[in-house]
C-alpha cells in the first residue's frame, strides 16, 4: 500500500510538514527524496512572475495515474505531489514531489519519473510576465526526451 497525497493549490507548501506527514510513526522508511521546482528569474531578460493555469479535474487525474504507475514500478511507501497554480514570483516554489521507500534507488527513480511526466503530460501551462509583456512558455524538447526514457519498449 502506497500512501498517496495529490494537491493542486495556490498556497505555498512546507517540505518539512509534508515529509513529517509521510514518515511520522513509521520505521520502515529508509529513504525520502524530495524535488522542489522553483520559479527562476534569470532567463535572459528577467521575468517578474509566472502565471500557472491548469485543467482542473484532469490535472489531479493525470497526476494520480502517474503516481499509480510509479507505485507499480517501484516499492514505495508514500508519494506526495503538490503543484501550485496562480501567480508565482521568482524564488517561490512551483511544485513538490516527495517519495518514500525502504531504499534510495526506488525513491530517486520514482521522483525523477514523476517530475519528467509532470513536465510533459500533466495539464498545466505557464505564462511569463516580463517587462515587455506576457508570453506562454514553450515546451523544452529536452523534457520530451526525458519523459520518453521511461516508456517501456
Amino acid at each position, binding site marked *: 500500500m502506497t500512501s498517496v497525497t495529490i494537491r493542486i493549490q495556490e498556497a505555498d507548501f512546507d517540505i518539512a510538514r509534508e515529509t513529517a506527514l509521510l514518515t511520522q510513526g513509521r520505521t520502515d522508511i529508509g529513504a525520502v527524496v524530495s524535488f522542489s*521546482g522553483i520559479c527562476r528569474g534569470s532567463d535572459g531578460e528577467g521575468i517578474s512572475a509566472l502565471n*500557472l*493555469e*491548469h*485543467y482542473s*479535474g*484532469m*490535472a489531479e*487525474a*493525470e497526476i494520480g495515474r502517474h503516481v499509480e504507475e510509479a507505485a507499480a514500478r517501484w516499492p514505495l511507501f508514500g508519494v506526495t505531489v503538490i*503543484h501550485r497554480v496562480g501567480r508565482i514570483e521568482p524564488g517561490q516554489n*512551483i*511544485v513538490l514531489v516527495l517519495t518514500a521507500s525502504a531504499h534510495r534507488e526506488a525513491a530517486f527513480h520514482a521522483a525523477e519519473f514523476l*517530475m519528467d511526466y*509532470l*513536465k*510533459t*503530460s*500533466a*495539464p*498545466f*501551462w*505557464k*505564462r511569463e510576465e516580463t517587462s515587455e509583456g506576457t508570453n*506562454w*512558455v*514553450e*515546451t523544452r524538447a529536452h*523534457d520530451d526526451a526525458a519523459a520518453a526514457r521511461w516508456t517501456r519498449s
Partner: protein
Amino acid sequence: MKVKYFAWVRERIGKAEETIEPPDSVRTVDDLIGWLTSQGEGYAYAFEKPKVIRAAIDQAHVKQDAVISGAREIAFFPPMTGG
C-alpha cells in the same frame, strides 16, 4: 458536447468553454478541429497549426484520430509546461 480550451488556445478563441453540436460527419478529434476552424477567426487562429494542439476526451489525453462519439467533455490545449 462540452468543449474546453486552455492557455493560448483559450485566449485566441476568447472563451474557456462552450457547448457545441457539430454535425454527424464530425467523427474524430481531427474532424472536430477542422469544423471548429470554420467557426470564426479566433478558432482559425487557435487551430492554425493543428499538429501542435493537444486534445483530451473526458479528461484523458487522446490522439487526434480518436473517435469523439459518446464524449461528455473534449478539451484542446497547447503542449503542457507544468512541473
